[in-house]
């Protein structure tokens, strides 16, 4: 065993243990870790946003390079604070509207190509069990998500029921994969504790 002398590794190890104490029950050590992490993350993101968005847009571009149109975006962004002034609160909706409209338009320009390929890739020749299973799965699962067709109709209901089974199998598969993923994250932390911190197996 060769215990680390690196303060960063010690901080990591103490934090890992502090967070895992929650698995026993809620306690002050966990709460301390939670509060420190929350404060750290808030400060980190504040600094990150300042240097990544605010400084380049206002200091570098608008003031430094004289690209004054950046101020239009800044003003639009600042309008969100009007919601604290009841008489002009309606102005706060404009930046939101811009953002939602822009986001929707952007997605509609690029996403259809992706899901059209997904659709055409299900044009499968029904000549193998795998293809037949995929084909039935796609159609029946789609049927499950028809919200305007009555599931009481025996045909629609029957196909949707098959779809439900497909969904449950998919969820089971996702569940298994996710559980393993979570354990894998623990393995990585155990690696830090055992080998990086305690130096087990090291001379």
């Amino acid at each position, binding site marked *: 065993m060769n215990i680390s002398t690196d303060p960063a590794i010690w901080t990591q190890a103490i934090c890992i243990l502090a967070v895992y104490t929650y*698995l*026993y029950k809620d306690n002050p050590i966990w709460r301390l870790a939670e509060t420190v992490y929350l404060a750290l993350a808030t400060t980190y993101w504040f600094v*990150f946003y300042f240097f*990544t*968005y605010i400084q380049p847009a206002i200091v570098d571009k608008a003031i430094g390079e004289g690209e004054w149109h950046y101020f239009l975006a800044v003003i639009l962004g600042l309008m969100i604070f009007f919601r604290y002034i009841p008489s002009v609160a309606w102005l706060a909706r404009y930046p939101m509207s811009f953002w939602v409209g822009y986001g929707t338009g*952007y997605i509609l320009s*690029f*996403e259809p*190509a*992706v899901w059209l*390929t*997904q659709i*055409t*890739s299900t044009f499968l020749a029904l000549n193998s069990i795998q293809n037949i299973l*995929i084909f039935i799965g796609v159609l029946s699962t789609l049927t499950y998500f028809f919200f305007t067709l009555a599931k009481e109709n025996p045909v629609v209901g029957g196909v949707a029921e098959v779809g439900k089974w497909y969904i449950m199998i*998919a969820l089971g*598969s*996702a569940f*298994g*994969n*996710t*559980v*393993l*993923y*979570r*354990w*894998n*994250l*623990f*393995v*990585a*932390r*155990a*690696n830090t504790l*055992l080998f990086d911190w305690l130096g*087990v*197996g090291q001379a």
Partner: protein
Amino acid sequence: MERLMKIDRRIIYLLGAAIVFLTMLYPLGLPVAISDLARQTYNEVENLPDDAVVILSPMYDSGAMGELNPMFVALFRHCAERGYKIIIVNTQWVQGPQIVHKFATEIAEEYGYVYGEDWINLGSKPGAAIFLQTAVKDFWEACIEDFNGQPVESYPIMQLVPKVTAEYVDACLVLNCGTPGAPEWLAYVCQPEGIKLVIGEIQMSVPESMPYVQSGQYAGMIAGSRGCAEYEQLIGHPGQALKAQDTMSAIALMVTLFIILGNIGYLATRKK
């Protein structure tokens, strides 16, 4: 039977932790069979042209590094072995390029890779989809500076890639753990520009990404820790993922047993 339904979760945690620590300290060295998907993914990277330029994008942060760091190491090593030029860049996942820089520097040194000529770390860029689309039109304008704060156009490797298009970039290798991630690279860069996209996916999202592999939109996928272990074997450099497989097999067995026991208990109490 009712007891089965009321096992204290702390017992499960303790048992799980014991299994993890024991199998890490005393590995069994169980064999890991190589799947068709891992082989396909390996071939997609292996068969790029000798002078290929690849973008390796670590779209993750500390939360997913347990699974994605070994994938980064395996992909970087594979590309370095083949002599490809490697550009590390991501968008929004601020910690990604910082996390991987240490591994990249170590492996680059091993292969005699010169920073700025054979590989570069451009860091994390804000903007998500806006960054990706700008990179297609003008990669230098989109990136501005590298990880060390130097102008990107001052590096020889960046002279090779003025734009992220099929003309200049042979493949994008994206390590994915959330949004933005591989679907954004697909929608805004790889599908419109016809660039090959190979991904490394966290175990959790493997089922969600499989339809993209089946449709050919993802040319290959390293599927979770297990997939990475297979990939490490294929490149001939066993790493962290392969080491973790004994532990993961034991844990999978434990979880399966508890699920079976839980269901037996549930069915028995329901009958009552």
